[in-house]
């Protein structure tokens, strides 16, 4: 019931991470290790600092304390809002990280189109600007952008929170499929336990006040191999029987420390 694949070399190790915004501690003494190829879902109540942790792990935010050891080759990231460049077409948006890598234009184009194909983006939509795309299409573009650089690790920061239920499921399937095909590991931030159980090998629960990791549970079966009944039963079991998940839904993010 505890760790799953700790014997393989870890792809990501966070040790003693602490962070404070304007003197207010949001994270303290967080230790987390992800095995190579492992998809871990990080859950926790709103405002517990899981997004901040993902930003620190991805190198967007410098932590006040602690160390991040990344042993993967290259990571991609998908944010809650798509964060596309409004002035660039979907194709140019997908190719943006490739441009940062300094690849020639032709190769950028080809790899962007391949990535678009993997998330089932229509070729005709690639010449459109983000403003012309629907919410789901934009998030698909953002996922394609993360996949275009051929990453072996991907950070997902609550990527599907703003999408409706049906679209959310399609996007989750897409991520499961992509993770299986490209064999990348992932840290998937979510506050939706159902989503966590569908997508991940392991669910990591964060302390409600950001003071470390409260605990972790391996999810039986493989991502994509669990049917809806199994997922419902697992989630219901976690919520009713497991004390670890007791506080997951009942914290207000506007609380004062």
């Amino acid at each position, binding site marked *: 019931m505890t760790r799953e694949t700790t014997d393989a070399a870890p792809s990501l190790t966070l040790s003693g991470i602490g962070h404070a915004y304007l003197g207010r501690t949001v994270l303290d003494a967080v230790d987390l290790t992800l095995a190579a190829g492992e998809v871990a879902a990080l859950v926790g109540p709103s405002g517990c600092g899981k997004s901040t942790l993902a*930003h620190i792990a*991805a190198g*967007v935010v410098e932590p006040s304390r602690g160390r991040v050891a990344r042993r993967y080759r290259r*990571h991609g990231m998908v944010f809650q809002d798509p*964060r596309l460049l409004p002035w660039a077409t979907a194709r140019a948006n997908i190719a943006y990280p490739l441009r940062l890598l300094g690849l020639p234009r032709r190769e950028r184009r080809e790899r962007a189109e391949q990535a678009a194909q993997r998330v089932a983006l229509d070729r005709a939509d690639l010449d459109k600007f983000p403003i012309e795309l629907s919410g789901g299409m934009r998030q698909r573009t953002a996922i394609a952008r993360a996949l275009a650089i051929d990453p072996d690790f991907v950070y997902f920061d609550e990527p599907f929170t703003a999408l409706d239920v049906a679209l959310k499921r399609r996007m989750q399937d897409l991520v499961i499929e992509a993770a299986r095909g490209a064999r990348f590991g992932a840290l998937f931030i979510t506050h939706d336990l159902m989503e966590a159980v569908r997508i991940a090998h392991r669910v990591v629960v964060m302390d409600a006040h950001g003071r470390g990791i409260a605990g972790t549970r391996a999810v039986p079966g493989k991502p994509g191999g669990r049917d809806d009944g199994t997922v419902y039963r697992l989630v219901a079991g976690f919520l009713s029987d497991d004390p670890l998940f007791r506080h997951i839904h009942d914290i207000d993010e506007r609380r004062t420390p």
Partner: protein
Amino acid sequence: MTTARAGALLDRLGRVGQFLWSGWAGLAGLALFAALWQAGHERYGDFILPAPLATLAAGLTIAADPAAWELAGQTTLRAVEGFALAAAAGAAGGLAAGYSAATMRLARPILTVLLGVPPIAWIVLAMIWFGSTDGTIITTVLVAATPVVFVGVAEGAVTRDRGLDDMARAFGAGPLARLTTLGLRHVAAFLFPALTVALGSAFKVAVMAELLANTGGIGGALAAARANLDVAEALAWVLIAVAGLIAVEYTLVHPIRSEFERWRNAARPWGVKR
């Protein structure tokens, strides 16, 4: 590949056509203005307000004279020199202020002071410093046009999307890459309108400074026309100055700006497009 290129070419041709077609609306506006002018002429007579056609004829006579072209060229050169300096100084300062809050706090009061001083005072000062030379005109233009560019660029830099910055950082972009791929592209959308305004004021201020400092150019010609009480010629010179400004704006500034604003137009439904 070739079909994609042909498609892009067709798209571009379509946009050029749309732009040219929108010229009819502009012509209609100008015709309305000319009609009002003609009405004013018929009411107040030839001496106060010459007819638009008479003014046009006077303008054509001036335009046929090579010496006049030299005068116009002189003014244009001074205005453009001052404008280029103002654009460079304003853009650099605006970027610095947009990216550093401390610079912004220091620059704000200076800007308020600069904008508070009437342009005419600058002309007087510049005349004392530089005498009746190009330096007077260029300094005046520089002082008048820099704040406009500065404010536009600073506003652009301040309103940049920090979410995009974080995204780029997550994909490994350093500060320079973030500035060139995100910051400057965002600022450009604010820079071009500011440059339009700055170019317009550069011409106007240059003509005014020339008239007051008596340093030749279109302003000098205007001063001579005033001394001769030749209203038609004065108006003709104004016409020439405005025509030059319109030519620059519609052949240079507008096409570049619409290229940068393409994505905004993409979302507009048919018929609302210009």
